[in-house]
């Protein structure tokens, strides 16, 4: 198992009921698998970063990674 810190941003916090949590996933879990496990509409446009960098589709996560999931903001 690997530990991943999931950081939710903006209204996603209200959908999931938490803003930051460290969760356990099987080794080699992909970003998509983690997103699918969250109570957030899969069709909702999101921006996902891993340790502050953009993630490529199918990217496998490592123990200790930080995944930030945000709605798409376009700037005030």
């Amino acid at each position, binding site marked *: 198992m690997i530990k991943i810190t999931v*950081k939710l*941003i*903006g*209204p996603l*916090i*209200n*959908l999931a009921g938490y*803003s930051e949590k460290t969760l356990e996933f099987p080794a080699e879990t992909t970003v998509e698998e983690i997103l699918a496990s969250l109570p957030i509409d899969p069709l*909702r*446009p999101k*921006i996902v*970063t891993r*340790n*502050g*960098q*953009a993630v490529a589709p199918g990217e496998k996560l490592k123990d200790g990674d*930080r995944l*930030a999931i*945000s*709605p*798409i*903001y*376009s*700037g*005030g």
Partner: protein
Amino acid sequence: MKGWTGHILRINLTNRTHKIETFGQEFAEKWVGGRGLALKTLWDELRPGIDPLGPENKLIIAVGPIAGVPAPNTGKTVVAAKSPLTGGFGDGNLGTRATEHIRKSGYDALIFEGQADKPIYVYIEDDKVQYFPAEDIWGKGTYDTHDYLYKRYGKGVGVLSIGQGGENLNRYAMIRSLEGRAGGRPGIGAVMGSKKLKAIVIKGSKPIPVADPEGMRKLGLDDLRKVGEINKQTGWSIQSTTGVLSWCNEVAALPVHNMRQTHHPDAWKIDGERLNNARVATYGCPNCTMRCGIAIRDHEGHESELDYENVGLLGSDLDIFELDQVGSLNYLCDDYGLDTISAGDTLAFYADAIEQGAIKGDFRFGDAEMAKKLLGQAARREGEVGNLLAEGSLRMARTIGHNSEAYAMQVKGLEISAYNCKFIPGMALAFATCPIGAHHKDSWIITFEIKQSQRDSYGPEKAAKVIELQRIRGGLFEFIVACRFPWIELGWPLDHYAEYFNKVTGLNWSLDDFWKVSDRIYALMKFFWVREFPDWDRTRDYPPMVWFDPSNADKEGPIAGKVLELDKYNQLLDHYYNQRGWDKRGIPTRQTAESLDLKDEIAEVEKYTKLE
């Protein structure tokens, strides 16, 4: 003419006279309204080199053809003048009931010229213009000023006022309306103050000329409801713009310590979640169903309405991570009528300059109490420090010396909004090419850079995206004059705006017709700058040098060891200029300007520089 009233009210404050002038369909279609109308007026009427704080400058208040009509977020007005902060073109927009009343009084714009001999305020009701002494409110903040005027005229009028900042010619003073927001970052409030004009009160009773009034009413009200529903579904207003703070902290784009750092472990203390939890009230502009103003109680117990820019610059950039104290600084800026962005950047620059040993002083990062005192001194220009701070970071740096200009976080004299671009090339380009100085309003591409492009790319796709956004945000939304949030935050389609425009004007424009107006306005804004600074070169479109300085790179985190690279930035700037049809100096070529129907403007600008 439908859509436009075709009337401009010109008020001369020196001799307290006014007249109503007219314009025709051709002019209306060429410049549309808001930013376009204001820019063209300033271009035609201002002599280059005039003192922005002297009687020759003009204050333009301009609305657009869909302003005041029920449709999503159309309660905005543009305020513009030659900027006392930058010396170039300056404008901004704000939500206010004045928008509707300007239209209902029968005008598309108000022009204030000259200078009153004593403080006054002006009351406009349809064709009537009255001048009243402002002694009772001169020296008061914007809250008391609004209270005084509402007591006298009732809550339904539109009020635009300045605070002590504008009165004392602080160069980043804004114009405020308690019915919405504040606007005019590049010191437009100081221009109003220089005219000794404390406030404008306006009330109109005429119908707004709409080509298809029934169709527009139905469509507009329906769309207002739909935007409200989407807002509810997405939950955007739960944190409104302040959700961006956590995201910037995650991706190393948060302004911290005068933008020397890009993230901070205490950022969560002032994030959107905390703000929403502390919410005591919600505010919005007229004609808006996604009210984005979150008010909290500040340290002294006032209600203070915050958005991301305020929190980023009066909070993290000053290393202040107590939300109520950030609220206090924001409240003071609002009351004094100061731009929160420039105020935050300027204070951060001052603390940095002290830390670097460039100047002596008592202010340290994180000292909220001292920051409050300094804001008061800056607003009132009290003492040496107050006078220095009132000048903004670029003039301060030039006074202080010791190479401090490199870390004065501004472009063209206007301070940078709350996105730290030490390693975000496209957003750095957006700030650097923004036509009023470093403002996020015209183009915001960080999410595109992180999600759809490579962060370290300096490729043509980023220049193209900056231009695309400038056409929409700095063009369309500023000349038809509407808040961009339904489109940018809720994905409300742009075609709707063409529909509103066509229903109001009876024209049949497509979005492409709007882009041509946008490009024309961008070209003329550049000509305005070039006429003021005939030695124009591309270095004026550079972000601050500290973003290129390897010694300023983050030591840890997502962008550790990385900063912008100047040769690559120049390539990106070339892409931008090429795609716009501008030369290597960043000036529109003759061919570009001709294609935008700027024949007279070419003749004028060529008195100052030769076009390629």
